């Protein structure tokens, strides 16, 4: 079936409320750099959706400083981190509170170069809601991270997501379709789509785009309040092109899953994609800034779109 790229680009632009003039959109096939340097990357104003503090040594502050040093080498302006100094699949409330404390300590050391999402466990809904208020409504964090403690269709998730919607912050829901089999509490993109349908006011990110992105993109494409998070999978060619084709560029978000993944491999998915330069800018940073606008404004953090 022939693909109408202009229609996709138009869809992306319209999702942005007409902020971009169609006449200014270069063609996808227009000449673009194939060799990037730091300065040309800085001009893209890259914000990274997906970072962790695990896998490297030192205190929280030392870890985040070390990771950001390499982010800067690739021109990345800001990285969103979540979870603590170690991965806990089903953390008790005292554990996720400790993780979030570690994260907030790291963010203090990072200054304006990092942001954070609160890590919650839907198996403890009451405690999670309290933590959401502590860290987001009354604290510095600007989103919610849900991992593999419970699937996105589990009972405790909906209350968390509704509260996040009230606070106008996005929810990053880890999703995978693993040929080798998912963990018991591991969500698929279809789970995320059901969650998005149940809470249409929420802004939900399907993490990893499901890993098997050809399945993941299909699963989320009919839900306008679902975004595709690109980070944390191999840099296979075609991922970003399909995401833009099916979702529109405005619903696609660059992230790295650092430090387990390299910034390079994950940035390359976008930089090497055959899409228009304006679509790359959206995916690499503008979309995330827009998604976080309300949360940042509530905390008095100025941000240029």
């Amino acid at each position, binding site marked *: 079936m022939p693909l109408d790229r202009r229609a996709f680009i138009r869809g992306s632009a319209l999702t942005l409320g007409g902020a971009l003039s169609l006449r200014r959109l270069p063609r996808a096939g227009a000449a673009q750099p194939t060799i*990037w340097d730091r300065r040309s990357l800085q001009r893209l104003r890259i914000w990274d959706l997906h970072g962790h503090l695990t896998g490297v040594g030192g205190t929280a502050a030392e870890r985040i400083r070390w990771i950001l040093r390499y982010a800067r080498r*690739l021109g990345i302006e800001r990285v969103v981190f979540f979870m603590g100094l170690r991965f806990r699949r089903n953390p008790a409330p005292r554990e996720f509170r400790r993780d979030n404390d570690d994260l907030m300590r790291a963010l203090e050391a990072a200054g304006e170069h990092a942001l954070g999402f609160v890590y919650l466990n839907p198996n403890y809904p009451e405690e999670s809601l309290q933590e959401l208020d502590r860290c987001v409504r009354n604290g510095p964090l600007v989103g919610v991270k849900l991992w593999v403690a419970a699937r996105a269709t589990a009972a405790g998730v909906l209350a968390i997501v509704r509260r996040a919607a009230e606070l106008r912050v996005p929810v990053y829901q880890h999703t995978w379709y693993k040929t080798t089999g998912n963990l018991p509490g591991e969500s698929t993109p279809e789970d995320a789509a059901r969650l998005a349908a149940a809470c249409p006011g929420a802004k939900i990110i399907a993490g990893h785009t499901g890993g*098997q992105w050809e399945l993941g993109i299909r699963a989320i494409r009919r839900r306008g309040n679902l975004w595709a998070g690109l980070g944390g999978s*191999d840099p296979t060619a075609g991922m970003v092109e399909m995401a833009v084709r099916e979702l529109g560029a405005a619903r696609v978000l660059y992230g790295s899953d650092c430090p387990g993944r390299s910034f*390079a*491999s994950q940035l390359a998915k976008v930089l090497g994609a055959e899409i228009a330069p304006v679509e790359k800018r959206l995916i690499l940073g503008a979309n995330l800034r827009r998604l976080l606008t309300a949360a940042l404004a509530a905390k008095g953090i100025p941000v240029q779109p």
Partner: protein
Amino acid sequence: MIVDVNVHLGRWPFRYLRHDDPARMAKKLRSSGVGQAWAGNFDALLHVDLDAVNHNTALWCRRWGGGLLVPLGSVNPRLPDWQTTLLRCVQRHKMPGLRLYPGYHGYQLDDPAVGELFRLAQQHRLLLQVAVRLEDPRTQHPLLQVPDVNLAPLQGLLKAFPRVPVVLLGALRSVSTRELEAMMDWGPLYVEISMLEGTAGVQRLLQRVPRQRVLFGSHMPLFVLESALLKLMESELSQEEQEAIRHRNAQVLLSGKKPS
């Protein structure tokens, strides 16, 4: 100048790829600063007539490469008369090496036929590439799940045939750098960076693996070329390290291994 030791011509069985056309691939490589690319052929994964596959690999490299693409043949030592296929790679196609797919061809490296293959490789001064992994096992097609290659038998093979250089393709997600450090003592073993992950990955790899053993590999067209290119930018590398990985190691390896 970059030498990319891991590209494929032919068709990936599960997806259309933008650069799976030899002309488009050559154009992309050239525009990205790659001056030489060692090319296998995805058709070798599932085709049985590997003589035809190797013929096409050589033909496409000549027709579209203009000196850019270096053809590597494929041999499956489980097939009848694989020895003739190997000899054709050497004599007819003048290939400097072979790319092996033990996972897709269904054998282990401790298969006695692999020893015979190494003996012939040494005799004909071929380098060998072993495709340890082509795709994350979590994303493989459910009807074609291919495990990573067990590399333990390589220790004995490299001891028995110390003049056969072996390049591991896609090994760096399945073998830890700590394991690799020990494996470097086995003999002339090399790795490429296409599946290397982690912040500052190349720099961290070089803390355990000598820079002379690390090669630039993109795994194009399944992976985007920019991934490997940007890894060299992400890590803090000396000029010496950059040059070694970008081209010098591969050039030395190939110059010593041209078929007689």
